[in-house]
């Protein structure tokens, strides 16, 4: 494989990512799926990078899940998004940073629609005015939160306590990167590195010492697909998608998976349990799974944050193999203690998947 070929493509897909003064909009589901990720993002932005990042208490869903589940029509989605822009305008911010990839995709879709159809924008302004009395400016810059971490990947490595390196062998960890479909498949130019060879996560992994694996089903969707997962009877092909990816990455023996989407880490993590229960098969060493992380969690680990502070205890696939490989010190006794020191309880052990 020729790396220079990829680098040429990456050169073609550079996007502008604002440097400071961010209006951060959270994801609906990430706080349940990976509760430490968004707080870790804010901690890195505020404490490490000293950036001005603001969250509005009145921010709501962007309607992405409902929109992609065919529950909410596009006009409603646009008006709800217009309201987020109004909150941003009122707060005096211009740079939007969505935490969720689907939100990012939907924001991009809406802005692109308004760009090509100004009459739709006028209509949405009218809708919002009638419903809320609010006005809004179009954001000057829209960057997904992973774009922001990508932008500061070098600043992060300079403060790194640990690298994505196997301390026992000195070799880089082998990392599978998985990009959420809505990050750049709809609008390749809006993603760092485009759609076929996105660079956003590769840039972080390489900067932080790891080695990226390019496997045949890399570009395949994780299978979340909203209504596909939401309806139990359809989960067979949702899990089938993840299964296809695991089978394809298996020969490369990855140490970990890094993702930038709310759904992907959830499904790539939890489906490993379901697959192990359904088929008896696991994809890591010694009956373990392949640990799956969000990019904020990986950044947090690199910066030396306590694994239990960044929420790694709620992962299905145990994170300890990676902590050990990276040489990260952690206290097993505090794994299931909450932030307030109260015992959270230990999850039931799976039958097949090993810790």
């Amino acid at each position, binding site marked *: *494989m*020729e790396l*220079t*070929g*990829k680098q*040429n*493509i990456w050169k073609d897909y550079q996007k502008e990512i604002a440097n400071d003064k961010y209006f951060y909009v959270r994801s609906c589901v990430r706080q349940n799926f990976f509760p430490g990720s968004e707080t870790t993002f804010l901690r890195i932005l505020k404490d490490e990078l000293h950036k001005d990042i603001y969250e509005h208490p009145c921010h709501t869903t962007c309607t992405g899940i409902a929109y992609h589940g065919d529950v909410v029509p596009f006009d409603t989605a646009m008006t709800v998004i217009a309201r987020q822009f109004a909150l941003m305008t009122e707060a005096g911010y211009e740079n939007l940073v969505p935490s969720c990839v689907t939100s990012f995709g939907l924001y991009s879709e809406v802005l692109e629609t308004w760009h090509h159809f100004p009459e739709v924008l006028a209509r949405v302004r009218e809708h919002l005015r009638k419903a809320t009395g609010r006005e809004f400016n179009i954001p000057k810059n829209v960057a997904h939160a992973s774009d922001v971490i990508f932008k500061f990947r070098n600043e992060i490595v300079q403060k790194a306590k640990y690298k994505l390196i196997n301390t026992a062998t000195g070799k880089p960890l082998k990392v599978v990167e998985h990009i959420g479909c809505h990050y750049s498949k709809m609008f390749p130019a809006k993603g760092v590195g*485009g*759609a*076929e*060879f996105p660079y956003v996560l590769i840039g972080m992994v390489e900067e932080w010492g790891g080695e990226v694996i*390019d*496997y*045949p*089903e*890399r*570009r395949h969707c994780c299978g979340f697909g909203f209504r596909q997962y939401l309806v139990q009877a359809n989960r067979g092909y949702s899990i089938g998608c993840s299964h296809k990816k695991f089978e394809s990455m298996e*020969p*490369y023996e990855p140490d970990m998976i890094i993702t930038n989407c709310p759904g992907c880490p959830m499904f790539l993590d939890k489906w490993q349990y379901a697959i192990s229960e359904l088929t008896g098969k696991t994809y890591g060493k010694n009956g373990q799974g392949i640990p799956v992380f969000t990019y904020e969690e990986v950044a947090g680990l690199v910066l030396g944050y306590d694994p239990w502070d960044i929420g790694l205890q709620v992962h299905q696939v145990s994170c300890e193999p990676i902590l050990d490989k990276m040489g990260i010190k952690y206290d097993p006794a505090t794994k299931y203690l909450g932030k307030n020191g109260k015992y959270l309880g230990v999850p039931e052990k799976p039958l097949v998947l090993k810790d």
Partner: protein
Amino acid sequence: MNKSVIVIGGGIAGMEASAYLSAMGFNVTLFEKDEKLGGHLLNWERLFPTKRLGSEVLTFLKKGMDEKINVHTKTNITKINAENGKYFVTNHNDEIFEADALLITTGYDLFDARRKEEYGYGIYDNVITSAELETMFLSGKPIVNKQGKVPKRIGFVHCVGSRDRKVGNVYCSKVCCVTAVKQATEIREHLPDCETYCFYMDLRMYGAKFEELYNEAQEKYGVTFIRGRLSEANETIDGSLLVKVEDTLVGRPLKMTVDLLVLMVGFEPSKGTKDIAKILNLNTNSNGFIEVADEHTLTNVTNLKGVFVAGTTTSPRTITNTINDARAAAAEIACYLNLYTIQSRNN
């Protein structure tokens, strides 16, 4: 004094038109940017549908080039001025040449396959272009992949950069289908144990003996044709390529690995064609090639009086059609310069 013609571009069309114009008694000057005359033909071992050697055609073209023709190779054109029905052509050494008529035969460039990112050309080791396969044939060396292994299975992807609105080329490049069929059969001759697959949208076997070559490919050479356009190619752990395609006749997606993937790259107006169009203010058509005055009747005439075109400068075409077109352009120019009354139809 004899009237003079400057021909810009020394490929097939430029050579054949120069030969005819010189034979008719005009003073001909031929400019070529490269070291050798012959254009793309220099890089092609065998030609469809006969599989005769490209060098034989080149020899024929060279024989037509008499000593009276002023050939300037390694020459770039920087400026062209028109004055009182004459053209003054300046080369990169600031030498000025005068002519009564110009013939533009700057031709095509092959599509840059890197623009079809999903196929990973320039990234994956064993994704090559049809032109690179032809270079392999021409070299006479054994056909091996990047890892030095003799391929057991080769896939040919049709329409790379052609009939593709997304890359900006809506047109058919006309020669790639039959080239794929030719190359697939040649692979079977070189490597009888290697399976060959053509992934096509339509097979456009319009020329004389094209369909026969296709039948032979199926029956004699066992080439398999799968109707469907690749959605992506991915490198596997052993350097082979996993291709994904919809088998549209079966109505199911299909995946297979191939040891070598050959992209049938289409035609685009060459850099030289685009440069000359800009220098002269020649009209170009929606595909970027030089626009002809009438699609049916004035196929060698441009929007500028005294400036003519031939060959792939106006649209993709075969060698046969390029040679015909060059001769037609020579006839058109002769009518123009000799003021034949038939010329009046053009106005």
